[in-house]
């Protein structure tokens, strides 16, 4: 057993995964299983006039909207996305029907022969077009202080704007679900983050009570938000097909289908209007955040909420007015992706501060330091920054580690160094955690403790971390702590595996259950302890006015990136990346380093090679050949360190960690490129063609 909670242990599922024994959904054979493939819309917007079918051979089935016993909609925040298109289609790739049967090749042949006749309508293709036509899903406002007065007294007013693009998750295991109708119940197995979300979606679509719906997690090969709400769609389709055919129905996407069909990170446009006082400090800031949500709203309202509540980042501006809008376009729906709206507004804020400092002839880091938020300050939503803000220590540590000051002033031509400071709100936004009321159960059976939670391991190490918290608290070996398979029929709903909440919220509940169990522990006695989460009393939130504590606590970080820019091709060579984080207390150094480095490299991909664009509603990058995630040759040396800052209500003081690392790399790299080329950077991905434009603008 670990001596200190932070001391590294090996992950519990490592051997099974290395040896290939771990069974992902595509590896599990179900007796008499059928396969299904989806026929998708080929147009961005229009009506389906007719569908002509070839002769369908025996044992093959077509499943569409008319086969749905309940509601034809996927339950999520806004349940507007139909399970199968109902006469109208709103994006290329929208599911219309399934072809189901025993042989995948025959299914593909049938799909090829189905002819859909559409009446095309004029689609809305871009964020700009949606803005002009006011094609809007959400429109949110909040403010702090007296912005108007500050603008009236401004010594200078600055406007600016920033853009970020689509991002695809590229979990290496594509989406996959199998639905089995047996004993008057529906069993759904698959690759997923949130079994209870799927159970809820099935309730609507099948119109069955939850005790007839069992959702069972299988080993999940990466998710990053991409398996948060989207698997509900496939699960509902597979369940409807299983009901009609009487066979287990397996849907495994191939990569191209996965990219076309699954949700993306929201492209963003963030505009700033800043008032500067006579000391050149920002006295007021108007921030307008615009997200392209795609064809259906789905989970986008809450993504936008996190985006706008993170918009002030680590800074305390006395007067702030923020507006956020989700626009509807005829492109693939956007959804959850690591960071959940925050990376877009934090990239924009960091570059806004960087470029403003340059404009004022000031050192960007010194300029940022003048605006830092401190403990006890009022946040942009009028709440209180309750926790200790160790940003000064983080900055000191990272500037020493990277020799930032020296390099910033003395780098040779074409080389640059940049720094980013960033925040992440821990757990659900606002009173989300109070609404969810996550429940856990810890059972003692002989010498074993059994953890019953709905937190899924998708690679992030949830099972290892949560078992470690219990093992360490009860002072029993890891082998004696059993992690109950995540199955909605067997574990309580401890909430979805999202929002970096697993260790802090679910782990916190387990820690308190384990402490209680330890006191009552008697050799042979069995017992069961359950806990339900509630926010500490001091937290206040009004969801109608967006006033109060948007998050119970925040994690913090800083990144420094060194880059060399090829003067001819403008290609980037990212040489070193330094990272310092405050995640409260580290639960496992090795596991956490893996989360941080993985998040960093994903963030660098978003900022550089991961170009995803649409043309007439069609994704221009729809395979791993043209959508480029970082390879082993693209990654820099990464040096990673932590400052300790325990949170009273987290297990051993732990706060959130998994999403935090995504927020830092893009702005640090962009600042480094800006430093190397002496131009402002306002857009990612940082493609050579975009950099050339910036250079031309500057000249």
């Amino acid at each position, binding site marked *: 057993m670990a001596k200190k909670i932070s001391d590294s242990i090996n992950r519990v599922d490592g051997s099974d*995964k*290395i040896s290939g*024994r771990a069974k992902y959904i595509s590896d599990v054979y179900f007796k008499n299983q059928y396969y299904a493939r989806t026929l998708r819309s080929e147009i961005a917007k229009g009506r389906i006039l007719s569908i002509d079918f070839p002769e369908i051979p025996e044992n093959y089935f077509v499943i569409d909207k008319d086969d749905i016993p309940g509601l034809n909609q996927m339950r999520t925040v806004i349940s507007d996305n139909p399970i199968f298109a109902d006469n109208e289609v709103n994006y290329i790739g929208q599911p219309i029907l399934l072809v189901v049967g025993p042989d995948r090749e025959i299914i593909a042949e049938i799909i090829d022969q189905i002819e859909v006749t559409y009446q095309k309508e004029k689609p809305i293709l871009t964020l700009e077009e949606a803005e002009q036509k006011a094609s809007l899903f959400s429109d949110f406002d909040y403010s702090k202080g007296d912005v108007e007065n500050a603008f009236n007294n401004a010594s200078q007013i600055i406007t600016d704007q920033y853009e970020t693009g689509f991002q695809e998750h590229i979990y290496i295991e594509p989406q996959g679900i199998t639905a089995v109708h047996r004993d008057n119940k529906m069993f759904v197995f698959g690759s997923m983050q949130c079994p209870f979300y799927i159970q809820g979606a099935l309730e609507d679509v099948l119109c069955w009570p939850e005790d007839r719906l069992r959702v069972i997690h299988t080993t999940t090969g*990466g998710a990053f938000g991409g398996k948060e709400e989207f698997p509900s769609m496939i699960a509902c389709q597979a369940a409807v097909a299983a009901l009609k055919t009487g066979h287990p129905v397996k849907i495994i996407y191939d990569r191209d289908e996965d990219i076309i069909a699954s949700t993306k990170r929201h492209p963003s446009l963030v505009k700033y209007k800043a008032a500067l006082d006579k000391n050149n400090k920002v006295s007021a800031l108007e921030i307008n955040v615009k997200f392209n949500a795609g064809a259906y709203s789905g989970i986008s309202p809450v993504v936008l909420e996190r985006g706008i509540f993170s918009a002030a980042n680590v800074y305390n501006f006395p007067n702030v007015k923020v507006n956020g809008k989700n626009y509807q376009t005829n492109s693939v729906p956007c959804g959850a992706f690591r960071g959940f709206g925050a990376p877009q507004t934090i990239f924009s804020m960091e570059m806004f501060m960087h470029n403003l400092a340059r404009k004022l002839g000031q050192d960007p880091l010194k300029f940022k330091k003048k605006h830092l938020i401190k403990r006890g300050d009022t946040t942009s939503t009028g709440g209180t920054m309750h926790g200790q803000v160790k940003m000064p220590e983080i900055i000191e540590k990272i500037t020493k580690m990277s020799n930032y000051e020296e390099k910033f002033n003395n780098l040779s031509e074409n080389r640059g160094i940049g720094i980013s400071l960033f925040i992440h709100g821990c757990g659900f936004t606002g009173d989300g955690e109070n609404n969810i009321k996550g429940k856990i159960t810890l059972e003692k059976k002989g010498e074993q403790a059994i953890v019953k939670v709905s937190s899924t391991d998708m690679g992030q190490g949830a099972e290892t971390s949560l078992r470690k918290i219990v093992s360490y608290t009860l002072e029993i070996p890891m082998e004696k702590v059993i992690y109950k398979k995540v199955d909605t029929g067997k574990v309580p709903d401890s909430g979805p595996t999202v929002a970096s909440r697993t260790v802090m919220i679910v782990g916190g509940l387990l820690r308190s259950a384990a402490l209680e169990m330890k006191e009552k522990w008697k050799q042979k006695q069995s017992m069961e302890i359950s806990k339900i989460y509630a926010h500490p009393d001091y937290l206040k939130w009004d969801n109608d006015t967006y006033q109060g504590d948007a998050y119970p606590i925040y994690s913090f970080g800083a990144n420094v990136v060194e880059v060399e820019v090829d003067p001819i091709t403008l290609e980037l060579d990212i040489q070193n990346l330094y990272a310092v984080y405050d995640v409260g207390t580290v639960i496992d150094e090795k596991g956490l380093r893996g989360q941080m480095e993985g998040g960093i490299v994903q963030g660098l991909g978003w900022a550089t090679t991961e170009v995803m664009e649409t043309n007439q509603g069609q994704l221009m990058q729809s395979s791993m050949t043209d959508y480029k995630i970082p390879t082993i040759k693209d990654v820099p040396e990464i040096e990673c360190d932590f400052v300790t800052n325990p949170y009273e209500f987290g297990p051993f003081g732990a706060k959130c960690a998994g999403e935090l690392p995504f927020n830092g790399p893009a702005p640090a790299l962009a600042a480094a490129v800006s430093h190397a080329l002496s131009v402002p950077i306002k857009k990612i991905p940082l493609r050579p063609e975009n950099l050339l434009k910036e250079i031309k603008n500057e000249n």
Partner: protein
Amino acid sequence: MKIEFEINNTQKILEVDPARRLLDILREDLDLTSVKEGCGQGECGACMVLMDDKAVNSCLIPAGNVHGKNITTVEGLRSTEQYKTIEQAFLDAGSVQCGFCTPGMVISAEALLRKNPDPDEDEIKEALEGNLCRCTGYNMIIEGVKLAAERGQGLW
């Protein structure tokens, strides 16, 4: 057509469509599910196997080309000292997260170490360039391979 090949040290004769992917033969006919399909286009490396000591993407190999070859998957390596060294090194270095790319990484590492038991960092990157990982950011995989090479002195 009839193909004869060696799979994990066992001679096999199969009647197959020569255009069928080796990946499907391994997963569906032989139940060797350590071999994963991540992209089907030879980009991600999740389906890598050893073909006569060389790491190849089994999604790009038609059955016809397998005739007379020696194919090894992780199932065929598991009992070897070399594999055990790689497994322990990957565990200790934190090289694994979601695990979907991992058997492919093991194959690339094994192929590298057979050819070059003492690789430097650039050689490791060269050997693993065809294996994509979305979880780790790669540095902890590089450390895993380095550690395996260090501990496996004389094994390869």
